[in-house]
């Protein structure tokens, strides 16, 4: 196997995972801090990757930092906020070309590792606070980002459905937090949050690429080794197995196309076999252009352009979403549930099941061809205490039986329906005006 995974503990709660494959032309390094989603801290945490991205102690000037990246052949330095299960993920990453392509013999990979280390561990904090001007800008940007969640109506609908579904649990907390909380953060409070996270977060460092990971490992070993850390134990919250009474919410907006998201619980996923069955079932149900939802809701009924199911193995939630005309929503909802009942009743052919299996296996076998898909795959594995390769997962999926798929669909219960409805009546024609 050309992609050997190596994993080392660099300091308490700090792990370094490397995957080397010479076919790539780049090296990618990411550092993720994982911290529990909490109402009190989520917003202040969310500003940190963007504040760090502004510059380090060594290079506090954003423009100079960007120029350094140009000199590293356009290496790309990113800051990101995500969430998985009950955890918030704060990530800084860098990707640069391999040294063999450098025109003047520079070491791009060493430069990238050093820069990323400086950005994360040597921030421009002076007297216990981030610089006032940087802070104000990033605070406003965070507020804009939180408010911009209505811009993408599909993502907004899915997020609202998830939040309603998990009301009262950490899973309902939005990854960027709230506008009111963002207004309350100060440059000092952000610096305190930073210090606390560096002390307590679970840290996962990934190196994926064609070059040697040794330099990066030594760099981060030195940087983290100098810290006296107190990491908080990492535990993913248990899965909610079954829905209670269906929660429903409709919000009206000035939009052309209405959107609906339906959140389902998928039962007890106590062992790997049940998990595999749930994954394959959701593929068969709505994961491809030959799935039940695509063929019966889109192609046969011509109700929509998209209607798909996705399954999150961390939360055990299956989510179906669709863009549909307001008046067709009841028909769409009925059709979506009808297809689920059909799968649970075993009303599908062996050929359909094998098609779903082939498509899923094909997507698994594509994972080793991308730097970020590899990182995403193994990070997800590591968080659940596994080291399974995509190929091993493909072999497990090959073992799932028809009966297991039927049982998996039978365990599915509808939890929440969120409907983003266009305001009644024909939406106004676009107003365009010329200056």
């Amino acid at each position, binding site marked *: 196997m*050309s992609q050997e995974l190596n994993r080392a503990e660099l300091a308490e709660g700090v792990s370094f995972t490397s995957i080397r*494959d010479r*076919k790539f*032309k*780049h090296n990618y390094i990411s550092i993720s801090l994982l911290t529990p989603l909490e109402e009190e801290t989520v917003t202040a945490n969310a500003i940190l990757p*963007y504040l760090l991205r502004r510059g380090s102690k060594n290079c506090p000037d*954003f*423009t100079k930092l*960007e*120029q350094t*990246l*140009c000199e590293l*052949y*356009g*290496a790309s330095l990113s800051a990101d906020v995500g969430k998985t299960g009950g955890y918030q993920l704060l990530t800084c990453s860098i990707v*640069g*070309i391999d040294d063999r*392509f450098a*025109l003047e013999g520079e070491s791009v990979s060493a430069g990238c590792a050093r820069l990323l280390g400086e950005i994360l561990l040597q921030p421009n904090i002076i007297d216990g606070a981030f610089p006032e001007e940087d802070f104000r*800008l990033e605070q*406003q940007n965070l507020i*804009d980002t939180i*408010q*911009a*969640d*209505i*811009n*993408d*109506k*599909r993502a907004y609908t899915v997020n609202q459905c998830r939040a309603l579904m998990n009301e009262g649990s950490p899973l309902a907390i939005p990854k960027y937090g709230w506008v009111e909380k963002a207004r309350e953060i100060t440059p000092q409070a952000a610096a305190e949050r930073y210090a606390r996270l560096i002390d307590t977060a679970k840290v996962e460092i990934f190196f994926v690429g064609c070059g040697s990971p040794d330099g990066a490992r030594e760099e981060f070993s030195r940087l983290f080794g100098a810290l006296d850390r107190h990491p908080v134990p990492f535990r993913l919250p248990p899965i909610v197995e079954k829905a209670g009474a269906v929660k429903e919410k409709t919000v009206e907006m*000035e939009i*052309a*196309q209405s959107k609906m998201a339906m959140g389902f619980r998928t039962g007890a996923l106590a062992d790997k076999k049940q998990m595999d069955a749930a994954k394959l079932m959701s593929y068969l149900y709505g994961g491809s*252009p*030959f799935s039940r939802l695509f063929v019966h809701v889109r*192609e046969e009924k*011509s*109700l*929509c*352009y*998209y209607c798909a199911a996705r399954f999150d193995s961390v939360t055990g939630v299956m989510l179906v979403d669709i*863009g*549909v*005309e307001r008046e067709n929503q009841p028909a769409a909802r009925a059709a979506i549930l009808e297809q689920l009942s059909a799968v649970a009743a075993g009303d599908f052919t062996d050929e*359909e099941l094998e*098609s779903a299996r*082939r*498509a899923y*296996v*094909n*997507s698994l*076998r*594509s994972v080793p*061809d*991308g730097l970020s898909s590899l990182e995403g795959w193994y990070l997800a594995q590591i968080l659940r205490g596994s080291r399974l390769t995509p190929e091993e997962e493909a072999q497990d999926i090959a073992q799932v039986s028809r009966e297991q798929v039927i049982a998996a669909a039978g365990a599915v219960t509808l939890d929440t329906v969120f409907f983003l409805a266009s305001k009644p009546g024909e939406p106004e024609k*676009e*107003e365009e*005006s*010329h*200056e």
Partner: protein
Amino acid sequence: MNKKSITSPILGERFLRVEHPSGLTILLCPMEGYSTAYAMFSAKVGSIDTTFKTQREEDFVEVPAGIAHFLEHKMFECDDGDAFAKYAKTGASANAFTSFDRTAYLFSCTGNFRESLEILLDFVSRPYFTPETVQKEQGIIGQEIRMYDDDPGWRSLFNLLGALYHVNPVRLDIAGTTESIAQITSDLLYRCYHTFYSLGNMVLTVAGNFRPEEVLETADKILRKGEEVRIQWRKAEEPREVAAPYVEQSLSVSTPLFQLGFKGEAGDSLTNLRRQVVDEILLEILCGESSPLYRRLYDSGLINGTFEYEVLAGRDYLCCMYGGESREPKKVREAICQEARRMAAEGIDPDAFRRCKKSTYGRYIGMFSRVESVASLMMGAYFAGLENMYELLDYVRDLTLPELETRLREDLDPRYSALSVVNPA
């Protein structure tokens, strides 16, 4: 069969160009170590192809906006079933897309490559449209159009193109409108198909995990030489001036979104491809993240992390665009136009030029590292008339400051700019 190997000394890689007896050009780039094979069968037709004829017809036909995209959807339906259902038997992940000037049918797979390729070549070679299936598709595409009607980024882009261009069909939405697609008939679809889907107007590109013999044997089996089709377009007489300097629309968004566009001096496809490479470097120097202007705009809160640039280039059109969120888009326009004028008068900073050239070079190396981007690049270069896609790297490496300054004057002239804004409703 005429075969030619084209190599890149910089990357130490090569691809194979084959002129197949059927009239199709086939470009093949096996990539060692990859699990996936990615194949694209593409026709040089897109939303800009609205008025055309061939040697077979007397008169030009003017087709409804969105027909190339409609045709792409309809190609998946065959007389013996749906193409997706056929791919279901091989496990390949299939898709298609239509852009301004091309339509591509593609799949990626990690096994059963030959079977999937056979499906691809077969269904794209056999059109099958009936009034009933056309009507069904009007419902689905109607929902796709409605989805884009709510997409602020998409709306701001097409409002901008409508402001920059008077008559050039690049101003039309790729999917058309619910009204325009209602006029599409199976006869019109056949006419488009028989005009643009002749093998001489198409290209097959494959990258990743496969053997060239598998492709050539499959092509021998499926493809038949057809009549040579000579396509004529009625070129829209587009003035140099923009249609409107400002356009706005209201949608449910949190902060205003804008696109600022500069209508460039468009040449033929190959010229425009080269200009696109140069203009991307220019946009980075003028207001990329490493520029002083970006810093001023960011620090004064006029732009945020969503700010980005893009060059749109194809047959008869070339425009440079900056876009993102801003509370005061007009001030952003003013600042960028002022900086463009200053740079045109005072010249481009040689150090910024060197730096941005280096970063673009690194970015272009990146395009050769993924199977899907290699297949797309081979297709894009071929349709633009560039035989050797690796020359893109040479373009960047050999670019000179005087050439960049010429492009600055011709492609970033504030007199030919327009601003499109989507305001919160």
